[in-house]
Structures are given as C-alpha cells and as structure tokens.
C-alpha cells in the first residue's frame, strides 16, 4: 500500500473518531445541575457580550485579567444585585461606567446568577491523585 493510501486511511479514521467525539460533546448533558438559561438570563448574556465584559472579567477563569472573576459573584457575601449595579453604574478607576437601563442591569444580574448556579470557581480544595488528576466540586 502506498504512503498516500496509508495517510488517507489514517485521516479517515481520525475524521470518523472526531465526528463521533464532537457529536457526544454537542449532545451529552454536562455535570452541572443548573437548569437551562431563562429568557431573562439569555438577554443578560447579550448585555455581557455587547459590552465585552469578558475583556476584563472571567467566568470559570476564562476571560481577561484586569478585573476579578465573576463566576460566583452573586453568592459572595454582601454582593447582591444592588452591589453589582453600583459597579456597573459608577465604574471604578479602570472600569468604565456603563449606561445600562434598569432592565439591562437586572438581566445582567440574572445571567451572572445563573452562572453562579452552574458550579464553583476557583476551586481551592481539590483532591488530587498520584497521576495529577483532580476531582471537581460540583453543585
């Protein structure tokens, strides 16, 4: 068998495997117990994206690093909707003030609250085994 044919066979095998793998990724449920996002949370996510909040903030440690991670902001002590709205309205030295309507601010809060319900980040007390594997803490 020529090298070209060998390479084609390897490529076909990889494509079949990745197709099956992708289908599983797209269709299998994850480990989070949070329900699907409500319409309000979806609108809040649009507010998040339109203003590119991820340029400075992270969710699950993914995003920009100028501001704090906001994964569990809504369950942090003292950080309720009023607290979050205050930051959005007034900004900080680095963070601009965002001129959002009351409805948009509420939608953003609902989105962040939904993210909070999906899991925990950062995980400070993870149990690791001898091969470097760690078990996540799920909600």
């Amino acid at each position, binding site marked *: 068998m020529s090298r*070209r044919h060998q390479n084609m066979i390897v490529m076909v095998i990889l494509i079949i495997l990745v197709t099956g793998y992708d289908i599983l990724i797209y269709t299998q449920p*994850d480990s989070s117990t949070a329900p699907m996002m409500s319409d309000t949370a979806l609108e809040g996510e649009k507010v998040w994206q339109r203003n*590119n909040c991820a340029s400075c903030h992270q969710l*699950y440690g*993914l995003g920009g690093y100028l501001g704090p991670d906001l994964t569990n902001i809504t369950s942090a002590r003292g950080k309720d909707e009023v607290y979050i709205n205050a930051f959005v309205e007034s900004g900080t*030295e*680095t963070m601009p003030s965002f001129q959002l309507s009351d409805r948009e601010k509420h939608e953003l809060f609902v989105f962040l609250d939904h993210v909070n319900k*999906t899991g925990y980040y950062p995980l400070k007390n*993870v149990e690791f085994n001898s091969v*470097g594997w760690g078990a996540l803490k799920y909600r």
Partner: protein
Amino acid sequence: MQKKIGSLFLVSALILLIIGAVAGVLISVNYILPDFMKELIPFNQLRPIHTTSVVSWIVLAATGGVYYYINQEVKLYSPRIAFAHYLLFAFTFFGILISLISGQMGGREYLVFHPAFMIPILAGWILFGWNYFRSLIGKVRDWPVYYWMWGTGIVFMVFHLSESNFWVFDYFRKDFIRDMTVQWKSYGSFVGSWNMLVYGTAIYLMAKIKNDQNPGRGKLLFFFYFLGLTNLMFGWAHHTYPLPTLPWVRYVAYGISMTEWIIFIRMIYVWSRSLEKSTKKDRSLSYRFLIASDIWVFLNLLMALLMSIPYLNNFSHGTHITVAHSMGTTIGINTMILLASVSYIIETNRRSIRKKAITRLFYTINIALGGFWISLIAMGVKKIIWIRSTDVQLTQALHEESHAFYVLFILFGVILCGALIALSLYMIRALLPDLYYLILPKSLQKEWDHVYGEN
C-alpha cells in the same frame, strides 16, 4: 500576478502586526494607569482591536506564504480567486475595526466583533480552500507533509470558525456549560488549525534552506503531523478543566495533551544530534528566525505540558501564566516562523534589505520577548498566591502588589513593539515592488518580467 498575490497578503499582514503591537502596548498601560484612554477608547474596546489584529497578522502572513510557495511549485489555479479572497478579508477587517472603535461588539472572547462578520470571513476561507485544492489535486502525486498541513489547516479553520459561532443557536446557548465547552473547544481547535498553516510553512522553509532532496515526505514527519492533528481534534479541553463538563471529556484531553511529551523529548534528541558547522545558508535571516522559533517551541511546549497536568492547571488557570503561554506561542513561535517566511521570500527574490539592522532587531525582539514572557509568568505566580490566600482581598490589592512586574511587562512590551514595528517597516519596503507590479498594466508587467525575470 500569480507570484505577487502572496506579497499583497504579506504586506497587509505586516501592517496588522504593527497595529496589533501598538494596541497591545496601549492596553498594557491600563495595568499601571487605570484610567488611561478610558474616555477615548476604553479597555473593553481596545483589547479586541489588539486580538483581532494579531490573529489577522498570523492568518494573513501564513496565507500569503502559502500562495507564494504554491506558485513556486505549481501554478496557482486562480489568481483572481486569490484576489477576491484578499478583498473579502480587507473589507471585513476594516468593517470590524470601525465597529470596534464605535463600540459595536456582540461576539465573544477572541471574536468580539458581531457574528455577521463571520460570513465574509468564512467565504474567504472557502475561496482559499477551493483555490488551494484545485491547484494541487491531480497536479502533485505524492504530497509532502506541508501540503497536508496547509490543506488540513484550511479545512479545519472553516469548521472551527463556524463552530465558534454555534452560540447563536439556542440549543447551545441555553446550556451555559455546554456553550462554554463548545466555545473553548472551537478556540483551541482553530488555533491548532492556524498552527497547521504556520508549522507547515516552517517545515517547507527548512526543507528549502537545507536543500532537502526529498522534502517533507519522511515517515517521522507524517507521524508528528498526525500527532499534532490528534491534539487539534481532541486535546482542547485542557483549557476548560475547571468547567463542570463530564469527566470523560477531561480524561481524554489529559491523555491526548500528554502525548506531546513525545514531541518534546524528540526535540531534545534532535538538538543533541544536530550540532554541526554552520553553513553560509545557516546565517540567512530566515534560518535565524526559524532557530529562534525552535527555542520558543521548546520553552512554550514545556510550559504547555506542565499546564495541561490538572494538578498544575488548578494553579495556573485564570492567571497571567496562560497569557505568558499565549504570547510566548503567538509571538515566539508563530511570529518567528512567519517572519522567517517573509525573510525567505525577500532573500530568494534578491531584494535589497538591511541585513545588519534586521539582525540587531532580531536579537532585540527575542531578548525583549524573553523579558516580557518572564514578567507575565511572575504576574501569574503573584496571582496564584493571591487566589490561594485565605484572606478575602480586593483585586486592587493584587494590582498594587504586582505593580513592579506590571512596569517590567510594559517596558519589555514597548521595546518589543518598537522592534517589531521597525522590522515590519523594513520588510514592507522590501516587498513594495511586488505591489507596484500588481497595479501595472499588463504590457508593463510583461516588460517587468522580461527585465527582472521573476515570473
């Protein structure tokens, strides 16, 4: 026009490198001057200008190189389609730039622009793929590995760029964890896709510089190609270890990511055997940039392998160590290889270029990048300590404690930016004759060909 169309992409790519580097310096200043340019163009708008420009530099430089090299080997199927590809990208980039400056966003992470812009981008990639495969299929029998890599890069880029916009569908969007998983899957894989274009270019260049009689056809090369492709397909989930996805997704990513130790160990073995007297060709600019990229591959591969171990990832994730990795790879590896490619094209066309000045810039870029990289790692370590602290601390406290590292990061960034701008300008000047050629009427192009014998 055939051989010059690549230069159009290369000149545009170098301009984007300048824009991306300047935007990068401007956003970095926010770390020490928090309200810097806040009223004019805030961080959340300036950062995507930086990321879009530097990604575009990588993609356009790789594309320009592929068009040029294909023309060297076989006749490009359609220069007109290549030009249409260029126009699509050029107009789309201008549209994105205007939208970002005016604050019109709505995308995500590295693709912050409105998702409607993805349509012409995908159309451009499809044109590229069509032109590429029509140029080669049936014309070349035993494809060397770099043809496989370029072709794979194009095909997977189309798929994964599309995948990165699956969030527009409610099916993905309503399940936040699935949405983020697919999002970061797509990012990891489209980076892998552009790496196929870039690393394929490196292998092509090395074969040409070493005057390899049977370039790119070794079994070992194909083994590493398929290993890289497997990582592109299955290894992305080391970006999302903390996400509560199903455990098997993370197991597979861990296992696949660890296969890259094979590449790392192979690199050490090859280096220890390849200490030979340098030849005249080994002192070419192109070769210098390739050797630099080799060193950065070694450093960043080691870093990536360590970061892919879940125990260590638990510390490094969400810190500037990931930024050190992304900067180390996009600048140290991708940019070095692409600068090698541009240098090769300039040198083989016997264009006048200030070799001594560029050599000095080469060393300046690599030394500054080294300082930049180490500063980011130090910033990351600082953040690890801050995150792991049992005290509740404000982000402002982290910024104050990290101030010295921020200053170093910005200082090295400014030097790096300055050197990249100077280098890019030299290279643009050397490539300008190709752009003049493109706007000449056909009769004058024939005259040019006759005099210079380049086409």
